[in-house]
């Protein structure tokens, strides 16, 4: 049975879930059991189908991507776009990540969102999100991918602003959507360029003909790739369009885990990997991609050092790790970027869900004592290890993974990216700088993660006497998925064990047919032998050093509760206020646009020109015209006779001449 051809089922199942849950949300919002079963069930079913397809592909790897055409979508003269799905090695990996991690997060949400009145609506949106994300990764052409691209942006807006009755949340949703739109313009412009050059927008066609249509290193391919990357900076929260991601923490924590850690924000990395041949042909763009990736990694890591909200630390950590992924694909190590994407989804989802469990417990504690303290502020936590041991140990695994400690998953993926950057330095020395930035960022990553763990779980408890009695581990529906993610974070490295330690580089070899076209234009020679050992050693050392410094400095000082904490000063204040980037954007972009809209467009154009000149003006002109013509009707015979005679003379003139 050829399961590949029912890949549409993977998309149809969550879509059915959305429709059912949506209907329940409208008419039976209290049927929570039904929603739970449908919501999580469709995801698990989709994962099962995806796994079956994967096994089929594993048994017989396809020579070329399998295109499953559903129907003809845009048959417009020279542009023929079908709604079709492309099943190849890359897309099946992404589908597995999305449905797999997605299923776990859905299960977690069943417990986390139990008390929420909008339960059915939540699962409807979550299912819809999965639908769009799958369309994004399975799309066989740029427009189909764009449907998914836009759709996940929409669902992100809906889910960030889930508790929209609080204006802050609604604003965060708007911010995310609008900043994504700016990036989407870049995506569209790139599509226009591609259409102009290729006459088609299918991935297979573009990949096959890239070499003949475009000149390597030329202006067109550089323009295309840079505009595509603009879209990526919006969707994947890189400089300069990253500021929406920390604000997006206003949404429920499982949403942060799914959308802003594991799946949506990785869409940009997937795009670069999918169009690897184009990026390989444009070394300038690759340089830009890697550079922005490295810069973002470092920049976000510094901000994370001084955040007190546990979710904000993780948000900046996500931005930073995405920077790593772009560093990876920017240097040409596309498979490594995807590898880090996969491992990051494991441990970051675990971190977010774990923090969700912590916040859940803190909320219950504060709710029981009717306190109004901030449940997400780490200064109010501390010593939670004794109350929530399972959560602690699992998050510790994730912390070790993200810090890059072997044998946990993050070590292998991060190490590969850094090694690739170092290797690319031989071609152009700027990459050595990127490597250095990546190393520093790794150090800072380990540091702030250790700080997070120390402030939350270790040391004395700052929550309060009465609240302590209510702190406990989350129920098994929530802790179960955490365990699965913990296992994956621990052993995920097996996906792509390097030959150095006797592995087979399984993922890299699996993805090779997809990354092959890029190799013609840009070949990356990974370091071997002693250089390789040196780099690996350095990476491990940095990770250990960072962790040690983090634990020591955090546990060494007495931490005040959020209530009593003195305000930050100096560099700490700058970091805490995120380098005032939001204020900068507000002054440079938001205010001028708002001024333009209000003064020029509203008062000037709408009120003045459209209302005044056009609408009222037309009326005034009519009235004047009518008024002046009216004066002819004097009612006096004398006037009429004059007019009569004048007319008669005129006619006479015409006749006589």
């Amino acid at each position, binding site marked *: 049975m050829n399961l590949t051809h029912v890949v549409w089922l993977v998309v149809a199942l969550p879509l059915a879930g959305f429709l059912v849950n949506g209907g329940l949300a409208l008419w039976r919002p209290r049927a929570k059991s039904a929603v739970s079963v449908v919501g999580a069930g469709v995801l698990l079913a989709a994962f099962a189908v995806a796994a079956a397809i994967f096994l089929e592909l594993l048994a017989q790897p396809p020579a070329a991507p399998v295109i499953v055409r559903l129907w003809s979508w845009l048959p417009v003269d020279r542009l023929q776009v079908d709604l079709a799905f492309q099943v190849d090695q890359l897309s099946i990996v992404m589908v597995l990540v999305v449905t797999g991690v997605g299923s776990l997060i859905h299960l977690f949400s069943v417990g986390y969102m139990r008390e929420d009145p909008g339960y059915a609506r939540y699962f409807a949106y979550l299912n819809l999100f999965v639908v769009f994300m799958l369309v994004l990764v399975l799309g066989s052409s740029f427009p189909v991918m764009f449907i998914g691209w836009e759709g996940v942006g929409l669902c992100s807006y809906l889910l960030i602003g889930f508790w929209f009755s609080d204006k802050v949340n609604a604003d965060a949703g708007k911010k995310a959507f609008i900043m994504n739109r700016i990036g989407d313009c870049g995506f569209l412009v790139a599509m226009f360029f591609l259409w102009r050059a290729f006459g088609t927008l299918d991935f297979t066609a573009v990949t096959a003909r890239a070499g003949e249509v475009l000149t390597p290193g030329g202006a067109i391919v550089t323009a295309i790739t840079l505009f595509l990357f603009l879209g990526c900076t919006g969707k994947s929260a890189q400089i300069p369009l990253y500021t929406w991601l920390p604000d997006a923490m206003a949404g429920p924590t499982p949403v942060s885990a799914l959308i802003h850690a594991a799946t949506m924000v990785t869409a940009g990395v997937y795009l670069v990997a999918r169009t690897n041949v184009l990026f390989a042909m444009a070394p300038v763009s690759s340089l830009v991609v890697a550079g922005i990736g490295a810069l973002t990694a470092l920049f976000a890591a510094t901000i994370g050092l001084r955040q007190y909200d546990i979710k904000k630390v993780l948000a900046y950590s996500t931005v930073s790790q995405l920077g790593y992924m772009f560093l990876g694909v920017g240097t040409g190590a596309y498979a490594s970027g995807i590898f880090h994407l996969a491992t990051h989804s494991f441990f970051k989802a675990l971190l977010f869900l774990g923090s969700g469990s912590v916040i859940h417990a803190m909320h219950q504690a504060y709710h029981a004592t009717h306190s109004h303290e901030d449940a997400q502020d780490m200064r109010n936590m501390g010593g939670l290890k004794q109350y929530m041991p399972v959560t602690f140990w699992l998050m510790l695994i994730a912390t070790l993974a993200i810090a890059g400690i072997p044998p946990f998953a993050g070590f292998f993926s991060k190490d590969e990216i850094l090694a690739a950057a170092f290797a690319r330095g031989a071609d152009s020395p700027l990459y050595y700088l990127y490597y250095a930035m990546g190393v520093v960022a790794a150090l800072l990553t380990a540091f702030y993660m250790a700080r997070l763990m120390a402030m939350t779980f270790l040391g004395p408890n700052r929550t309060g006497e009465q609240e302590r009695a209510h702190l406990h581990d989350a129920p098994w529906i929530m802790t179960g998925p955490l365990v699965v993610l913990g296992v994956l974070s621990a052993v995920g490295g097996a996906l792509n064990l390097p030959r150095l330690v006797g592995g087979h580089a399984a993922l890299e070899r699996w993805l090779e047919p997809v990354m092959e076209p890029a190799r013609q234009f840009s070949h990356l020679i990974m370091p071997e032998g002693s250089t390789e050992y040196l780099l690996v050693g350095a990476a491990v050392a940095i990770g250990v050093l960072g962790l040690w410094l983090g634990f020591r400095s955090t546990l060494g000082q007495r931490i005040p509760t959020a209530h009593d904490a003195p305000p930050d000063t100096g560099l700490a204040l700058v970091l805490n206020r995120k380098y005032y980037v939001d204020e900068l954007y507000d002054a440079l972009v938001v205010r001028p646009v708002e001024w333009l809209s209000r003064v020029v467009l509203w008062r000037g154009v709408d009120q003045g020109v459209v209302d005044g000149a056009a609408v009222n003006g037309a009326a005034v002109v009519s009235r004047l015209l009518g008024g002046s013509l009216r004066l002819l009707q004097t009612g006096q015979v*004398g006037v009429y006779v*004059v007019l009569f*005679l*004048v007319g008669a*003379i005129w006619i*006479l003139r015409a006749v006589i001449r």
Partner: protein
Amino acid sequence: MIQFLFYLFAFAAVLGAVMCILSRNAVVSAIWLMGTMFSLAVIFFLLGAELIGILQILVYVGAILVVFLFVIMLLNLTHAASDLRGPVSLGTTIVVIGLLLLELAALWRYTPRRLAADIAQSPMLADPSTLFAAGELSRQDAAARGVVGALAAPLFQTYLVPFEITSILLLAAIVGAVVLAKRRI
């Protein structure tokens, strides 16, 4: 002799018209109008249209003007306040009438002899004496059957339909005049 008469009565007609439009008294205006019409009747005679001349006297002077006088007497409009319009109207009149005269003066050039000469010069037609044959025919007809007889044939043959319609028009006019002028319908 005839020429002298023509110009004499032409002058009389113009004089009558001028005095008609300038008199203050409505009855005096009507009398001057009568003078104009008589002069025109004589001119008709001189032009060889005797029947029309007689009809002019009978119908215009004898019927229409009498009705005018009746109405003037009925409305008792003999008071002599000036009812010429103001200077603006005078100015407009001068302009408009001036234009009219200019236009009509342009017709002065088109005397038949000249028209005939023009046509003769065009290569299509040859003999100017064969033009305006209808007038010659009518003159012969009038000579043969008398003025009234010459008019009878076209009136009751070619122009029969308009003749009948005119009779209906007269009926409508009579009824209309009676209805409009009654005090109570």
